[in-house]
C-alpha cells in the first residue's frame, strides 16, 4: 500500500460512498452548532419534514451574539436575543446538548470543543463557521461549512465533498525567544498569501510546530482559512494525547486505552506525497503586525508600511492603495509609529489560557498608555475565565486598566455591542482585518496577545522582546 498523508488517512476512514467523478459522501463524527448559521438549517429540516440523523453527534453553543458584560439581564438587543433563543429552542426540540449562555462551559465554539474533549483526534468535525479549522490541531479533519451543509449534516450525518490536495507547511528549526504561534501563522500567510492554500488541506509540520503546545497549534490551524485552505491539521503526538486526557467528553478506562492506541497512529507516513510543500525558516520569524485589510498584508514589527508604488501588478497596487486609505496609513511609516487606541485580546485564535497568561505577563505592573481609550480582555470560555481568575490574571488586567469580560466572540466581529467606531484603530488578537470586520470603518491590526499587551502599555506597536517583563 502506498504511503499516505494524515489527511489521506482521515479522509479514507470517513468515505461512505464515492462516485466515479470523485464526489464522495463523507461521514461526520462531530457537528458543532452556533446561533448564527444554524436557524435556517433547522427551519429547512422542519419544512422538509426530515428527522435529525443523530443527536449525540451534535454540540451547540451560542457565542457570536452574546453580550460580554453583565448577563443577568439577558440579551438586550432583540434580534440577538431571538437568534440565541432560537438556538435554545432548536436544541431542546432535537435533543441536542447545548452549553447555554449562562453555563460555565459556554464560550467560543472553537475554544470549547477541544476544552471539553468534544474534539478528539481522528474525527471528522464540521461547523457552520470557517474557523472550524482550529480543531485540526488535535489531528482531526475539521472544516467550516455553509448553512445548506449544516442542514445536510443534521439530516444525513454526511457531507458531499471532493477530496482536496495535500499541502505541507513545514516550519523548520526553532523560533527565537518571545515568538509565538500567532507570529508563525501570520508569517505563513504573509508568505503564501490568502489564496495560497486554496484547494488544499494544509498539514503543519517541522520542529517549530512540534515544539508548540497544543493551544499554540490551535492558533496556527485556526488561521488556515485565512490562507484559503479547506482545513489545517497537525499530527498526533504525546502532547495531543496528554491534552485530551481527562477532558469531560474524552473516553475513559478501557475505551481510553483503545482510543489512545489508535490515535498514536495518526501521522503522515514518512514518504507520503504532498502536492505542494512550503518551508519557512523559524529562526527568521519576527513579531508580526498586519497593516492592511487582508491577513496577507502583514510585516514584522521592525518593518514599515509598504509602498504601493513599488508594486508592479496594478490590481495589487490598487488593493494596497485602498487598504492604506481605509487604514488611514501612509506608505513607509515605521510600524512602531502606529498608535492604536483600542486593544482587543480575545477570539478563537487567541483567547485560551496560555494567551491570557502571555498577555498578563507583559501587562503586569503597568498601566494602559495615555492614548489607549479602551482595552478588552474577553476569555474564550467560562472555564478559561475561571482558570484565569484563579491565577489572578483578571486582577493584573484590571489594575492596568483593562476591562475583564464574559466569554464570546465579542469584538472579533462585533455582532454584539463590542465594536469599533469609524476610524478607531485597534490592536487585535483576532484573525481578520477585513474592512468593517470589527465595526464599520474600524481599523484592525492583527497581532499576538503579547504584542497587543505591549502596544497597550507603550501606546504604539513595539517589539515585545525589547520590553522588560
Amino acid at each position, binding site marked *: 500500500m502506498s504511503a499516505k498523508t494524515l489527511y489521506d488517512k482521515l479522509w479514507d476512514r470517513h468515505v461512505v460512498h464515492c462516485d466515479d467523478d470523485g464526489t464522495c459522501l463523507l461521514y461526520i463524527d462531530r457537528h458543532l452548532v452556533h446561533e448564527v448559521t444554524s436557524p435556517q438549517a433547522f427551519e429547512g429540516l422542519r419544512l422538509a419534514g426530515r428527522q435529525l440523523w443523530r443527536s449525540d453527534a451534535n454540540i451547540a453553543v451560542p457565542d457570536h451574539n452574546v453580550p460580554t458584560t453583565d448577563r443577568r439581564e439577558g440579551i438586550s438587543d432583540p434580534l440577538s436575543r431571538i437568534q440565541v433563543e432560537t438556538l435554545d429552542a432548536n436544541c431542546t426540540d432535537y435533543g441536542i446538548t447545548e452549553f447555554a449562555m449562562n453555563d460555565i462551559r459556554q464560550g467560543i465554539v472553537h475554544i470549547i470543543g477541544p476544552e471539553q474533549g468534544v474534539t478528539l483526534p481522528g474525527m471528522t468535525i464540521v461547523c457552520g463557521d470557517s474557523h472550524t479549522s482550529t480543531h485540526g490541531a488535535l489531528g482531526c479533519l475539521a472544516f467550516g461549512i455553509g448553512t445548506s451543509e449544516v442542514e445536510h449534516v443534521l439530516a444525513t450525518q*454526511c457531507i458531499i465533498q471532493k477530496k482536496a490536495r495535500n499541502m505541507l507547511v513545514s516550519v523548520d528549526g526553532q523560533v527565537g525567544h518571545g515568538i509565538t504561534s500567532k507570529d508563525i501563522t501570520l508569517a505563513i500567510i504573509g508568505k503564501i498569501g490568502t*489564496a495560497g492554500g486554496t484547494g488544499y488541506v494544509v498539514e503543519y509540520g517541522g520542529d517549530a510546530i512540534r515544539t508548540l503546545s497544543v493551544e499554540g497549534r490551535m492558533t496556527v490551524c485556526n488561521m488556515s482559512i485565512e490562507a484559503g485552505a479547506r482545513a489545517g491539521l497537525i499530527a498526533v503526538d504525546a502532547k495531543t494525547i496528554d491534552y485530551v486526557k481527562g477532558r469531560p467528553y474524552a473516553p475513559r478506562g478501557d475505551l481510553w486505552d483503545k482510543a489512545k492506541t489508535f490515535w498514536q497512529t495518526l501521522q503522515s507516513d514518512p514518504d507520503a506525497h504532498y502536492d505542494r510543500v512550503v518551508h519557512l525558516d523559524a529562526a527568521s520569524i519576527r513579531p508580526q503586525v498586519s497593516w492592511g485589510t487582508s491577513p496577507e498584508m502583514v510585516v514584522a514589527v521592525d518593518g514599515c508600511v509598504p509602498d504601493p508604488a513599488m508594486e508592479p501588478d496594478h490590481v495589487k497596487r490598487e488593493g494596497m492603495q485602498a487598504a492604506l486609505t481605509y487604514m488611514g496609513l501612509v506608505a513607509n511609516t515605521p510600524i512602531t509609529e502606529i498608535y492604536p487606541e483600542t486593544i482587543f485580546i480575545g477570539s478563537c485564535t487567541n483567547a485560551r489560557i496560555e494567551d491570557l497568561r502571555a498577555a498578563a505577563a507583559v501587562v503586569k505592573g503597568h498601566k494602559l498608555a495615555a492614548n489607549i481609550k479602551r482595552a478588552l480582555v474577553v476569555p474564550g470560555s467560562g472555564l478559561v475565565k475561571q482558570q484565569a481568575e484563579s491565577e489572578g490574571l483578571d486582577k493584573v488586567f484590571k489594575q492596568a486598566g483593562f476591562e475583564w469580560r464574559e466569554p464570546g466572540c465579542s469584538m472579533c466581529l462585533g455582532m454584539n455591542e463590542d465594536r469599533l467606531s469609524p476610524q478607531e484603530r485597534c490592536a487585535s488578537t483576532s484573525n481578520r482585518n477585513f474592512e468593517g*470586520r470589527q465595526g464599520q470603518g474600524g481599523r484592525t491590526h492583527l497581532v499576538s496577545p503579547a504584542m497587543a499587551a505591549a502596544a497597550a502599555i507603550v501606546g504604539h506597536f513595539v517589539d515585545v522582546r525589547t520590553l522588560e517583563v
Partner: protein
Amino acid sequence: MQAFCKLNGLVAPLDRSNIDTDAIIPKQFLKSIKRTGFGPNLFDEWRYLDHGEIGMDCSKRPLNPAFVLNQPRYQGAQILLTRENFGCGSSREHAPWALLDFGFRVVIAPSFADIFANNCFKNGILPVVLPAEDVARLFAEVAATPGYRLHVDLEKQQVTTPGGEVFRFAVDAFSKKCLLQGLDDISLTLEHVDEIKAFEARRKLEEPWLFGSSRR
C-alpha cells in the same frame, strides 16, 4: 433550489481582489433567521453612504454614486465579474443569499474561496473560474461597451462574448447535475441511507468512543 441552465445577462464589474464575505454582507444582517431579504444589503458598506442596520428601509438611504452597482449602466446586472479569491473569509451562506436576492446568478472570477463556491452551488448561483488574463480582457470589454452582456451556458460549460469569443470553464459533474436540475442534495444523499447506516455500524465497532455512551 432554483435550477440554472443558461443565461444571457448584463455584466457588472467589481474590480477588486480578495473580496470577503464581510464585505458582501456585513455582520449586522446575519442576525436575521431567514434565508431571504438580504439583497438590499448586498455590499452594504460600499453601496450606501450611511451606516446600515437590519430593518432599515434601504430605498430611503443615501447611495454611494461611486460604487459600481449604483451606476445606471449596471442596473439589472445578473453576472458579476470580479477578481481573485472572491468570497474569502467567513462561511456565511448569507453571502450567496444576498447575491441571489439582488439578482446575480453568475459570478466570474479567476478564483473563489472554497466554502463560498460551495455555498453558491447550493443556492443556484454558478461560480465561473476563468484564467486571470481572460478576466482582465472581460473587464476591459465591459468598461468599453455600455450594456455589455455575456452568454453563460452551463450545459456546454462556456461563456460567450458579444463578439462571439468563447471561453470554456470547468465544473465538477455532481455540482453541474444538481444545478442543471435544481436538485436537493439531501434527497440525493438519503438514497444512500443503507450505506450510511452500515458505515455507522462499522464505526461504532472501530471507534466506539465516538458514540453516545462515552458522553458525560
